């Protein structure tokens, strides 16, 4: 049954992956309370479980490694060896090997890992303490044995128990159907203890063997992501169809206002509209996952990094139950890894520095998620040294990103913007942690891909805070339809602040940049027609300006006409449908209620184009 086996192996990979991910977190938890018996039991069971299934599936390296790890975990949970950071390091290292082995299984590359070293080290720890264990004798993991209890109570000695156990073993081997005599029975029969003593011991046994109670698991089923994506796509098509129908029925209503059939159609449309919206929300929710899925990997990462940098860092996580779309989950991990790495590497000071400044020796990083209207807000805040604006400026000049003259006039916010420019990295030396050739520019690009924005707040000596705002879902958005040169474009409504009408005569040019003064505020402008190569001016004496807001920076987009608001389903554009010159300005395409294909403008990219122009012109 090759298919069946494939499916089982697939399940094994998915489940083991979840377990291994959770282990990281459990170990970090364990370091907070090294005596947490329940947690130790769980960790033991997790590794044990993987071993069991791996054995069946013939993943021998996995069996070998989990077995060696399990031996140590067994000793930890039985208190034979203490939980030390060194042992935790070793076990976590072994968990990393397990992840690698699992990766080989997933890739079916037939590769093996060299486990000699890790196995040897695991066995070393395992061996060290083995003498002291054998002395403690037959310790049962789950229930205290009657013999042990009687021994502790001083009723019998260990020899008596040993003898009784042997008797029992022999009895079991010779008697087939009857259950073998109990230790208590043997001890009473041989006159070592009284029946009352056994009863008392049994009562104690019952007490110490109370099962642990945990909340019941949730009722869930696993569904292939592809199926969910299919459903989401279909709902997207349905929304497009609904939008068209809405348009048609409202046209019909305008044409035949008193027709009862049309009224009935409109009522039905209203109902269909409502149901489609509900369905849309329901489907999107099936794709929502808790950010916990991403946050979970950070305690381990912070722990490892802090240890390797010889710093004390505490990670506080809140709001991990906040739900976001799956695609957000998939794409937010890398930016967060980068920001957190930076915080540990550059933000948090060494113990000595912190002490000198009267800060607690343990630095803290706060990672939180919360919902803010239609957005989710993810914050990473450290209490480290903060960002040095002067240093950033110097670096910017050094790297040729700005001229010394520009550096003089940059505002604090603008200085921070430099961090996100390609080719910028403040790490004086490339460490194995931060300097991996990926800079904050990649962070910004990734967040931009998610239609999100990033903002930095920093104070010297106090710390730095990164605020990342992301839309809850990416597939369906509200847009403002605008027209330029008879072509319709969609601007995501989330970026639109307001629309204004201005006489062309009030548009000024400052430093080659067109601007207007809007209620005392100078607003840079960009002509949509120019961006897309239609030529800038349409000759009319008044302009419509869409004021948009991108990461706290406002600018205006000049268009020929405003067409109104519409909910659209974003479709990715594949292939070379648009000239490469403009493709980066486009976030996707959609079909309107009128059945027209419309391009959706990527405001962040327009902003970047504008910013580049500004710097060139300055």
């Amino acid at each position, binding site marked *: *049954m090759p298919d*069946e*086996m494939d*499916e*089982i192996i697939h*399940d*094994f990979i998915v*489940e*083991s992956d979840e377990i291994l991910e959770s282990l990281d977190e459990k170990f970090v938890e364990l370091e907070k309370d090294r005596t947490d018996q329940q947690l130790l039991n*769980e960790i*033991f*069971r997790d590794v*044990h*479980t993987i*071993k*069991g*299934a791996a*054995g*069946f*599936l*013939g993943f021998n390296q996995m069996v070998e490694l989990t077995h060696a790890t399990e031996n140590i975990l067994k000793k930890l949970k039985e208190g034979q060896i203490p939980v030390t950071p060194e042992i935790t390091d070793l076990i976590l290292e072994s968990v990393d090997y397990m992840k690698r082995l699992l990766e080989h299984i997933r890739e079916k590359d037939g590769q093996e890992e060299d486990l000699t070293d890790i196995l040897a080290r695991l066995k070393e720890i395992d061996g060290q303490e083995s003498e002291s264990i054998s002395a403690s004798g*037959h310790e*049962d*993991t*789950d*229930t205290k044995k009657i013999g042990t209890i009687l021994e502790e109570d001083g009723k019998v000695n260990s020899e008596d128990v040993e003898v009784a*156990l042997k008797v*029992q*073993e022999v009895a*079991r081997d010779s008697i*087939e*159907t009857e*259950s*073998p005599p*109990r230790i208590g029975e043997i001890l009473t029969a041989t006159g070592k203890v009284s029946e009352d003593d056994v009863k008392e011991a049994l009562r104690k046994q019952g007490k110490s*063997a109370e*099962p*642990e*109670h*945990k909340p*019941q*698991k949730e009722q869930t089923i696993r569904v292939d992501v592809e199926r969910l994506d299919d459903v989401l796509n279909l709902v997207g098509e349905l929304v497009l169809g609904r939008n068209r129908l809405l348009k048609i029925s409202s046209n019909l209503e305008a044409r035949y206002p008193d027709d009862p059939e049309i009224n009935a159609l409109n009522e039905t449309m209203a109902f269909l509209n409502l149901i489609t919206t509900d369905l849309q929300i329901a489907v999107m929710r099936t794709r929502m996952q808790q950010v916990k899925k991403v946050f979970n990997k950070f305690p381990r990462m912070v722990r490892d990094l802090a240890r390797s940098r010889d710093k004390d860092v505490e990670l506080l996580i809140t709001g991990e139950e906040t739900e976001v779309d799956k695609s957000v989950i998939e794409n937010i991990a890398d930016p967060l890894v980068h920001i957190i790495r930076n915080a540990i590497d550059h933000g948090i000071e060494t113990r000595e520095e912190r002490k000198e400044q009267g800060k607690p020796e343990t630095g803290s990083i706060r990672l939180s998620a919360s919902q803010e209207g239609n957005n989710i807000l993810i914050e990473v805040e450290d209490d480290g040294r903060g960002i040095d604006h002067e240093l950033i400026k110097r670096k910017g000049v050094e790297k040729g990103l700005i001229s010394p003259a520009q550096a003089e006039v940059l505002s604090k916010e603008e200085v921070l913007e430099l961090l996100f420019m390609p080719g910028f990295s403040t790490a004086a030396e490339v460490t194995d942690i931060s300097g991996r050739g990926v800079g904050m520019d990649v962070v910004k690009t990734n967040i931009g891909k998610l239609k999100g924005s990033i903002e930095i707040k920093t104070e010297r000596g106090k710390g730095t805070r990164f605020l990342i705002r992301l839309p809850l879902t990416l597939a369906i958005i509200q847009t403002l339809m605008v027209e330029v040169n008879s072509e319709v474009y969609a601007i995501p409504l989330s970026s639109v602040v307001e629309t204004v009408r201005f006489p062309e005569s009030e548009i000024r040019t400052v430093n080659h940049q067109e601007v207007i003064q809007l209620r005392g505020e100078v607003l840079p402008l960009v002509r949509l027609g120019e961006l897309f190569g239609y030529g800038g001016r349409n000759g009319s004496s008044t302009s419509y300006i869409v004021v948009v807001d991108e990461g706290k920076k406002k600018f205006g987009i000049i268009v020929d006409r405003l067409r109104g608001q519409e909910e659209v389903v974003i479709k990715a554009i594949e292939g070379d449908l648009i000239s490469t010159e403009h493709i980066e300005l486009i976030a996707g395409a959609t079909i309107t209620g009128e059945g027209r294909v419309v391009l959706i403008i990527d405001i962040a990219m327009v902003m970047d184009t504008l910013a580049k122009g500004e710097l060139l012109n300055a």
Partner: protein
Amino acid sequence: MFDQNMRILVVDDFSTMRRIVKNVLKQIGYSNIDEAEDGADALNKLRSRRYDFVVSDWNMPNLDGLEMLKQIRSDEQLKGLPVLMVTAEAEKEKVVTAIRAGVNNYIVKPFTAETLKQKMEQIYERLSK
């Protein structure tokens, strides 16, 4: 041997393991199989309908295999139910505990279809004596 149509309950907290055990059971001709994800879930299922055979893991959250076994043996309705315990390795002490608690047989994982068949035959023979 047991009736090929008998209803079997496979108890394990790891769904991959449940699938593996089901697969092995199918190989030796049993296909009427239900699953439970821990001892507590299993007891609920056992009390709600009739089962003829239980294959259970040992180490599970909520209620482990041993506790489940004890409760089966002390339940008027269930006490005669054959239980085969799956253990990770031949840990003698654990096996002794299980036998004392009334397990019909135990099997060490990983096991083959052949071994499982053999163990089930042993249980059947002892029960029919």
